[in-house]
């Protein structure tokens, strides 16, 4: 089939870029029109990427085009874009969520002084994220990867007058940097080992698809280092610490960057470079276990948090862990499917949380309650998102989580057990969150009011998507076209009935438990706290990871920094001061010598003459 729109796919990131440039140049005077321009930019991206997706769904060929950017000796650096089924899908997900978040932000950020700056950053982020998606080589992807990191930093620290926001922005930047260094080293290794230094994804797939071209040790090393980059970006253990703190940014940002798109970039990166991972079983195992551990680890923390956004942040970390686990099990299909559905329901949950925060001006769930009566739209859309996240059929989260769990059961029963346990925890913390916020009686007089339509309409759209997005890949005969379209492999469907039963039962059990504890009160809330106070404390303090990092890395690095500082201050600075001091001291002495007495001048001249004569005479004896 002809590729009509696919060849113009490079325009998709250009629209938000144009919006960014306009806002950058004229933003100050456009408090009203600025947001509209940014929204229109993302709408244009959405329309074009939807057209591309429709074309790809219709069976169009993959399209690749680009141009030579830099020639260094015999090496040519190319810039280009890839339209494949995977990138077309990701483009639509990114631009759709970006568009909805833009619309939502018009309402949410209405009273902010720097609203046009906000929209400029969002537009830049949208551009970089879309660029990351369609990049056809790893180097270009890396450039955009850093750009989204920059935008994330700028937007987390958007309210820079809050010290927590400033600290969180720095933390996000520094912690992801740890992963990015790994990614960069992987990039250099690839550059070194790839034939012709070709970093395009097509070449990578080609080279790593054949055995023997690159040794297994190097392959594993490269894969692990790439995965390290993904760990940083996607908030996997042990680099997850920045993501919950990133919630200091405006809530639409949490929805767009820290739930739906940027944090999924790590998953996307692994999916895009999957041939490397496929060539190294050890790397796949690492990915699977890190993902599984993160899934249950973050879910357990989410149970004990009190901040509505932090709960959702840990939930995001946990769900990203699921995706990584799916990748580690070798199923790009299941991972991308979960990424696809998760983007919608998690963005929905964050925007719903933003709507709640907008209404009650607090983020502590214990200070909310009974909001279901006053915020009807928010409440039912949030319920849809929560049920989808908890994996209740027939919502989208159920199908995608099922796909992952089915893969796990097929390959690795231990990972399946972890996945089921994490699913139980997920259902439990979501029901806790939902019941505390929307059910019961209002606490502390925070009754709330419904948000304006500009904020609720995106919620409704996302809720609809959260319901239907799962139907693209159902584990029944003849319905699994999505996986095959996406990656060319159909998802594994063995033991599906068992998985569906178990995961539904677990989800319902979690919700029932939550209902018993937080609505009916049949189980007292402090049942666990009373018997095992250390456990609650451990979870509340997030396993003391931050404290451990502080003690191990921050303190020791600060000590090294102090040592270097002392060296710089005393040794280097001392030498500089000595040089300067010597000049000053000489000057002072010379000033004292210049006393206006002709006779002393004569004396100095004679002394100089004697020294000269002595020197000349002395040279003879040398």
């Amino acid at each position, binding site marked *: 089939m002809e590729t009509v729109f696919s060849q113009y796919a490079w325009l998709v990131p250009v629209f938000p870029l144009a919006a960014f440039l306009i806002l950058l140049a004229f933003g100050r005077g456009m408090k009203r029109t600025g947001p509209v321009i940014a929204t229109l930019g993302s709408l244009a991206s959405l329309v074009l990427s939807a057209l591309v997706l429709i074309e790809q769904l219709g069976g169009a060929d993959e399209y690749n085009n680009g141009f030579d950017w830099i020639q260094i000796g015999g090496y040519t650096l190319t810039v280009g874009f890839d339209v494949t089924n995977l990138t077309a899908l990701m483009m639509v997900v990114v631009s759709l969520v970006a568009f909805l978040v833009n619309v939502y932000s018009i309402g949410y950020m209405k009273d902010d002084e720097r609203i046009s700056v906000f929209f400029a950053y969002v537009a830049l982020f949208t551009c970089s994220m879309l660029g990351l998606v369609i990049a056809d080589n790893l180097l270009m992807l890396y450039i955009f990867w850093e750009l989204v990191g920059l935008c994330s930093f700028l937007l987390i620290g958007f309210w820079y007058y809050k010290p927590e926001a400033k600290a969180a922005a720095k933390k996000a930047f520094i912690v992801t940097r740890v992963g990015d260094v790994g990614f960069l080293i992987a990039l250099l290794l690839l550059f070194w080992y790839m034939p012709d230094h070709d970093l395009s994804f097509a070449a990578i797939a080609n080279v790593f698809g054949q055995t023997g071209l690159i040794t297994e040790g190097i392959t594993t090393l490269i894969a692990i280092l790439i995965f390290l980059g993904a760990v940083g970006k996607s908030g996997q253990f042990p680099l997850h610490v920045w993501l919950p703190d990133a919630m200091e940014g405006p809530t639409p940002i949490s929805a767009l960057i820290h739930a739906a798109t940027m944090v999924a970039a790590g998953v996307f990166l692994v999916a895009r470079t999957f041939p490397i991972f496929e060539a190294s079983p050890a790397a796949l195992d690492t990915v699977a276990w890190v993902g599984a551990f993160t899934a249950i680890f973050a879910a357990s923390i989410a149970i004990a948090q009190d901040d509505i956004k932090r709960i959702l942040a840990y939930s995001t970390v946990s769900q990203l862990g699921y995706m990584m686990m799916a990748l580690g099990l070798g199923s790009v299909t299941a991972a991308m499917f979960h990424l696809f559905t998760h983007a919608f329901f998690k963005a929905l949950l964050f925007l719903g949380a933003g709507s709640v925060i907008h209404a009650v001006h607090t983020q502590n769930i214990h200070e909310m309650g009974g909001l279901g009566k006053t915020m009807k739209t928010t409440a039912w859309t949030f319920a849809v998102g929560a049920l989808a996240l908890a994996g209740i059929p027939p919502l989208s989260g159920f199908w995608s989580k099922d796909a992952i769990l089915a893969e796990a059961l097929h390959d690795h029963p231990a990972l399946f057990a972890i996945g089921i346990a994490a699913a139980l925890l997920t259902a439990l913390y979501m029901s806790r969150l939902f019941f505390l916020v929307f059910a019961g009686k209002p606490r502390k007089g925070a009754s709330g009011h419904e948000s304006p339509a500009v904020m609720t309409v995106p919620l409704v759209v996302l809720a609809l998507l959260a319901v239907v997005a799962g139907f693209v890949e159902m584990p029944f005969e003849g319905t699994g076209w999505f996986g095959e379209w996406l990656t060319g492999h159909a998802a594994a469907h063995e033991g599906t009935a068992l998985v569906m039963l178990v995961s539904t039962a677990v989800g319902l059990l979690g919700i029932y438990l939550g209902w018993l504890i937080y609505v009916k009160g049949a189980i007292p809330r402090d049942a666990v706290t009373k018997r095992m106070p250390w456990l609650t404390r451990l979870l509340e303090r997030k396993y003391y990871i931050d404290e451990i990092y502080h003690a191990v890395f921050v303190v020791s690095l600060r000590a090294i920094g102090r040592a270097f500082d002392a060296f710089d201050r005393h040794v280097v600075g001392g030498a500089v001061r000595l040089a300067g001091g010597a000049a000053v001291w000489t000057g002072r002495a010379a000033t004292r010598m*210049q*006393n*206006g*007495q*002709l*006779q002393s001048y*004569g*004396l100095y001249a*004679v002394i100089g003459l004697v020294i000269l004569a002595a020197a000349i005479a002395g040279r003879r004896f040398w």
Partner: protein
Amino acid sequence: MLSSYLTMAAILFCIGLYGALTKRNAVIVLMSVELMLNSVNLNLVAFSKYGVVPSLTGQIFSLFTISVAAAEVAVGVAILIALFRSRGSANVDEFNEMRR
């Protein structure tokens, strides 16, 4: 012969130098400077007579030096008198105008 002239000149020069650097009275200082000039003249004459290539140039040169020295003393004494009139003293260490 040459060395005795040169020694004599060196002694004279050192006396002159010592006087020029240590005496407080400006008149004595001027006289000491004259002494140094004269020791130089002595050198010039000695070299013109006993040097490696004897010639009259040295003696003519010393005549020039004497006349220049006379002019210098005339100017120097004139300045001295002006200073003495304005300051009421001829002590060299009281004059530090060069510092300003």
